[in-house]
Structures are given as C-alpha cells and as structure tokens.
C-alpha cells in the first residue's frame, strides 16, 4: 500500500516535471523541471529495488547533467531564447516521440506483469562483474564514444577561440 502511494507520487513527479519542461517558457525553469522529472524516475527505480540505478540517476543527472545545462544557460542571456520555443523541426520531434511511445507500449504489453515487486536484479558486485566481463566490449565502446565527444568539444572550443 505504502509503495503504491509512493509509486504514484514518483510517477506524478516524473510526469509533472516532464510537462513542466515542455510547458514553461523560461529555459532555466525548464532545466529545473527536468531535474524534478529525473528525480521522479530515480524514485521509481528505488521502488523496484534498483538502488544502484537510482543513485546513479541522482549523481549523473542531478549532479552532472543538470548542472552543466544550467551552467551553459547562465552564460547566455534569457532574452536570447525568445524565439527558440517554436521551430520547424516539430514534425520530426513528434514522429520520434510517437515512435518511442509505441516501442514502450509494445514492450509493456509483452511483459509479464506481476502483482508484487520483488528483488530480481543483481546487486552492485554482480553488476560490476558482468559489466567488466560479459559486457566489456560495449562498455569500452561507450567510453570511447565519450572520449570522442570530449575531444570534439575541446577542438570546437579551441577553433572558436582562434577567430
């Protein structure tokens, strides 16, 4: 019963935050609504006994991504964003959102629902072991991708400085 109430609370946070992100005209508020939404998702992770994922969500999204977004926003002026709320890419965005919706709906429809949540997922040690043995190559590919992004950002920043 308690977990059901908490689940609806976390879900409301996630959904309400998401609506806030697209609804508000103030970009800084949108970034903070995004944080609320992501924390709601962390709450849902917690309710399905994925403590590690929940904490990663808090650390990475709350700690790193939102702060970098806010940092970038604070370096710009708010009035610069006046016209950025509407642009011509909305049909593509709508298509992508609809596609994602169908993927998730399909996955949910096929999953075997269970009445009660129970601990099924691995603990931290099993997670780490499988990440570095069974899934070592995808893991390394992801880190190379991040490295490429990092180097790319530095190159772009330096090229901008020269002019």
């Amino acid at each position, binding site marked *: 019963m*308690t977990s059901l109430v908490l689940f609806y609370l976390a879900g409301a946070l996630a959904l309400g935050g998401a609506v806030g992100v697209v609804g508000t005209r103030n970009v*800084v*508020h949108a970034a*903070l609504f995004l*944080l609320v939404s992501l924390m709601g998702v962390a709450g849902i992770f917690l309710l399905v006994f994925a*403590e*590690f994922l929940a*904490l*990663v969500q*808090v*650390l990475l999204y*709350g*700690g*790193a991504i*939102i*702060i*970098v977004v*806010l*940092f970038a926003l*604070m*370096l710009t002026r708010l009035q610069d964003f006046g016209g950025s709320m509407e642009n011509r890419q909305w049909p593509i965005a709508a298509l992508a959102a609809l596609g994602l919706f169908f993927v998730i709906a399909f996955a949910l429809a096929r999953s075997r629902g269970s009445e009660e949540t129970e601990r099924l997922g691995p*603990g*931290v*040690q099993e997670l780490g072991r499988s990440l570095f043995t069974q899934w070592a190559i995808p893991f390394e590919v992801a880190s190379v991708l991040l490295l490429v992004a990092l180097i790319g950002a530095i190159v772009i920043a330096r090229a901008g400085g020269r002019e």
Partner: protein
Amino acid sequence: MTARDIALIILQLTVLVTGLITVVLSLTWLERKALGRLQRRMGPMVVGPHGLLQPAADALKLLVKEDLVPALADKLLFWLAPMVVFVPSFVVWVTIPLAGEVVVRNMDLGLFFIVAFSVLAIVGMVMAGWGSANKYAILGGLRAAAQLISYEIPIIMAVIAVIMLPQSMNLVTIVDDQRTIPYAVLQPLGLAIFLLAGVAEVGRTPFDIYFAESEVMGGPFIEYSGAHWAVFFLSEYINTFTIAVLVVLLFLGGWSFPLMPESAWLGFLWVVVKAYLVVFVIFWFRGTFPRLRIDQLMSVGWKILIPLSFVNFGLTAFYKFYELPWWALTVSSLAITVAAGYGLYRRWTWPARATAEERLARARAYRRAEVTDAG
C-alpha cells in the same frame, strides 16, 4: 510499516536534527575562538563565559532579522534555493554511522548514497545565484558550479580507492575493516586528496572562491538575509562536519581504536573527538592560507588533485590485484604524497626565492606566450 516504526523514525530524525544544530552552534564558536587564537586575539569574550553564548545570540539575531527579497528576483527559485542546498546536507546523515549501531539506516550503498546526494546541493547554489537577479550572485553561482563539479571528481576517485580495500560501500564494513590498520596508513595520498577536495567542496578558505567577499561579495548568497541566509550558513557548517566525519570514518579508523575496549558509547565519543580534531585542521587551514585565485583553484583541481587521485586509484588496484604486503602500498603512497607536496611547496614559494630579474624574466615570457598564442 506500523505506527511504532513511524514514531521511531520521527524520533531518530528529531535527535539527528537537534544533534546537528548543536554541532553547528559549537562549530561557529570553535571557529571564532580558533581563528582568534591563531591571530593572537581572544575571539568572542563578551556574551557568556568566554563567549560561550555567542552562537545562541547570533542565531536569535538571524531569526528575527528582516527577510528581504529583491524585487526582480525569481521568487520561486529564490525561496527554494536554500532548501535545495540544505536538504542534501541533512539527508546524507541518515546513513552516516557514528558508532557500530548508532545510525538511522545503515545501507549497503551508504557511501555512494552520500556522494550522490551531496552533489544535489550544487543545483541549489546555481538556483540561488540565478534567482537573485544580481550580477555578483550569477558570477558566484557560475563559480560554485565550476568549482564544485571540478572537485567532485577527485573526491569520487578517492572514495573509489577506499571502497576497493574492503570491497564494500557499507560504512560500517569499511570502519570494521580498519580495526587493525586505518586506511590513513595505507593511503596517505588518498587522505590528502579527500581532505583537500572536501574542503574545496564545502567552499571553506582557501577554496571559498564562490562567495569570496572581496571578489563577488558573498556570491550566490549576496541577496539573502535573515532566516534564509541562516539556512545556507547551517548547511555550510553541517557539510564541514560531514566532511570531517567522513575523513574519520574512511581514513582514521572511525570508532575503532587500538587498546581500547569496544563499546558503543566509547566509539561514539571517539568519532566525535576525531571529527572535531579534523574540523580544527580545517579551521587551521583557514587561519593559515590565503584564498586562491580562481584560475589557481581550477589548476589545483584539474592538474594536481585529479591526476593524483588516479595515481592513488592505480596504486590501490595494483595492491589489491597482486596481493602485495600492506607496507608496499603505504610506502609508495607516502612517497608520492611527499614528492607531490614538496614539488608544490617549491613551486608556490618560488617568488620568495627568486631574484627580481628572474621574476621579471618570467613575467615577460608569460606575457609573450600569451600574445603569440592569441595572434
């Protein structure tokens, strides 16, 4: 969950809040006394014997002070920011044990929980900076974001090196594993990194760049007054104490002490005594070192602490993987700490040794490099 459980949780949290506020009041008094002694003054002496009632008088003054809100401020963010800063600094205490069983909830992921939630406070700083509609506040908020995420990396790397030793993130397990050898002996480098980065993370002198009075006049907190400012103040002191307690738990052996009988009360006392000693060291820093410049702050973080934290991590991994004797880690870690410390000392005291011509030559070379780089 029965009514009894809920009552127990409420009781535990009340004890926690009361304890933390008492600690903060004692810390403000201690800081002023310690700084006074370091500067050959007496510190507060007027209110109560040796100024003991000064914190109470200060708290009362702050609470009755008028709470001003700037007309152009983003009201919601302005009101929320102190809470967003305060809540994480309080929430992490749910899982910090002060003796074997003296803890609200001992979690298996306790250390990770502390790291993850303490990061959220940065958002509050940025909210305060942006919401105040003040240029100094925005500058301070930007500085806070840059400084705090930079120093988060060495802290996390030092914590990872610690959790490799007992192979657990449970703080009770970590302390129990130090019963024979505290990790300060195994990883002096880790202790140095964690303490320095921790002081930077709570923004105390010499790392108080983001609210430096002489530069940004209080930074994100410039427009705050009264009770709201008091909340920021409270969380700063709670965070200082948290860092001190974490140093004690992760490196100084927590509640275990050789040649002492095991008991919960004695252990609790030990942790508190050790934590106050670490806090004293942090106050001592404040009385000794001048504030860094912001570029110096960033280079200390990125060019010194982060590489050293990776070295610390690598050393610990070697030690664990090849199952070396414990003194191998101690000796190598100590050697690197001493070498890095001596190198930094030589570098930072260079202006005092150099002649006027040498200093001038270096300044010219620096200027030329800057000009050619820009052109």
